């Protein structure tokens, strides 16, 4: 024990706990390989791991994770689990897509869940991609912001410019414009480099700038970088009254307490639920290869519930529903 992790005890501790023999049919073993980063990253690695842990008891699973430090180790880290005969291996992040498919071909008896990994044809039989529509989550968040903004200026601070951030940004902008054609959206991507998703100070600086230029909604969509933007907004005078911020990926009310003063909602991919659902399907042998689309929307308003006017709530709920059933398109083209 004693290592870090949200899962603190369970993370490190889970790894050290005496393990049963995964090769036996009775023991259901789930392994997780992070994208470069940690299981407590307040982002998708954490969401994935929490998804695993959430259904651990229900499924009677034995779980363990490996934190990747070098992207060139994806295949080797997956192999640690296949060598130990794990039943399910969750790999996190689009960067691991190739390595996961490769491993799927080599170990046909192991199930793989590729988090954020779109499975193009031909699909590998034992690999399921868990996919979310970031643009839908962004759209819902933008719609809310568009309805509520007083200054008609809103901003989004993003990590590196890659498809998921592009999707969030496009959804956000289109949603806001749909709600309020007069709104102006300023968006900024982090300069390239390996710190693009882990530069909260830069994110805070960009938020500061946007706020000074009159924005009253800040959407932080870029891991630690976006979190910096949220924290900055939370500290600015008027936070929670005139200024609001929107989290990303998972309900950041739970992961980023520092943003509470302004965190009206989060553009959420229901990652934990998706993972849990897929693990249950595997246990129940109903999993299908190809892509599984998890749901995306916005989180509950928590303390801000009273501050969101009722008509806004209904309009946003309506939009979320239409997005889910496909009757409303976000206008984002990958």
């Amino acid at each position, binding site marked *: 024990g004693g290592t*870090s992790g949200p899962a603190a005890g369970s993370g490190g501790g889970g790894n050290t706990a005496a393990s049963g023999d995964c090769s036996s049919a009775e023991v259901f073993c789930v392994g997780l390989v992070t994208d470069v980063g940690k299981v407590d990253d307040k982002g998708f690695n954490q969401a994935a791991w929490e998804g695993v842990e959430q259904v651990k008891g229900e499924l009677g699973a034995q779980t363990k994770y490996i934190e990747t430090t070098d992207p060139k180790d994806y295949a080797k880290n997956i192999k640690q689990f296949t060598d130990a005969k794990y039943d399910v291996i969750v790999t996190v992040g689009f960067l691991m897509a190739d390595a996961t498919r490769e491993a799927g071909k080599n170990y046909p008896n192991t199930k793989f869940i590729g988090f954020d990994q779109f499975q193009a044809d031909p699909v590998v039989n034992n690999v399921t991609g868990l996919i979310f529509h970031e643009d839908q989550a962004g759209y819902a968040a933008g719609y809310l912001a568009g309805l509520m903004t007083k200054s008609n200026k809103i901003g989004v601070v993003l990590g590196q410019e890659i498809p998921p951030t592009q999707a969030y940004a496009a959804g956000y902008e289109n949603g806001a414009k749909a709600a309020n054609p007069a709104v102006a959206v300023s968006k*900024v991507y*982090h*300069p*390239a480099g390996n710190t693009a998703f882990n530069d*909260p100070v830069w994110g805070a600086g960009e938020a500061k700038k*946007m706020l000074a230029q009159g924005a009253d909604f800040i959407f932080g969509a870029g891991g630690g970088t976006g*979190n910096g933007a949220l924290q*900055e907004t939370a500290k600015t005078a008027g936070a929670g009254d005139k200024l609001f911020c929107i989290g990303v990926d998972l309900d950041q009310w739970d992961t980023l307490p*520092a943003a509470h003063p302004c965190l009206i909602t989060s553009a959420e991919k229901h990652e934990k639920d998706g993972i849990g659902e897929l693990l249950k399907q595997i246990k129940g042998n109903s999993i299908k290869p190809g892509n599984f689309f998890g749901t995306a929307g916005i989180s509950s308003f928590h303390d801000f519930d009273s501050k969101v006017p009722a008509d806004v709530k209904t309009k946003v709920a309506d939009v979320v529903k239409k997005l889910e059933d496909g009757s409303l398109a976000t206008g984002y083209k990958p």
Partner: protein
Amino acid sequence: MEWLKRNRIPVGAVVVVLVASYVFYAVNDNVATSMFKGAWFFAVPLVLGALTGVVGERSGVVNIGIEGQMLVAAFAAFFSAAASGSLVVGVLVGMAAGIAMGAFLALTTVKGLMDQIIAGVVINIVATGLTSFFYRPGRVLSSNMPQWEIPVLSKIPLLGDVFFQTGPIALFALVAVPVVHFALFRTRWGLRTRAIGEYPSAADTAGIDVIAMRLVNVTIGGIFAGAAGAFLSMEATSGFERGMTAGRGFLALAILIFGGWRPLRVFAAALFFGFANALASQLQGVVNIPQQFITLLPYLLTLVVLAVAAGRVRAPGAVGQPFVKGEGS
């Protein structure tokens, strides 16, 4: 004035920049203010980090461990503030952590005669390892760092908004620059510090204890990197993240050299860099060239400025070299 005559180029540059800034301000006060605010915000940790470099390198000790110093300080500041519930404790512990890392550099290089570059690299690696290893999620600050409005000064158009509506650490940086500059060039401590960094045996034969002075300077100089760290995790944001310095220590090193090891020029260089950065993000999505080209603007501009104008800066003469008593005299 004698002083004006000697410094007419920098003074002229400052005047030009100020005028241009106010013209910009007159055209669009909102954007101008926000961009300058952004620039200073970006510059604060660079200035502080570079000041640690100034004090250390002026004393003859290279410091490429500023990044690690800042990271450890950010870590210590945030977690002690979260644990104690006191912001003051956090800032003080952050500064103390910077000083402790400075002491490590001082002891290994000045006493232990270890190569200074290696010592800096060790600091960087240890800092990454330690702060990552002992990181705990889920801690929060009990309150936010205060925002101060300095009476009178904060009412100055533009400058007041940018510099004097401020958090305590940014204000500390603002004050530290002229103070260190003055100390370095106008006081006994400064004269001796420059002497031990420039030509230690001359200082030695003049009765100055080079070793003791280097130990003290390099150690105490860590206070600025410590403050920079506290700024990152407590004032700029309100949380510590692994690797959150994100290369700012190295940028500070570049700023230190860019600024010719002089606090006022370091300040100007950092602001320049910060402004280029603010400009880059302001232009994103506005001008129609790929975002990546815009974002590398600050780096490119720095290189161009150095190549065209101020390329040949001169490091303190003895920087990097260990001093052993009785040798070299």
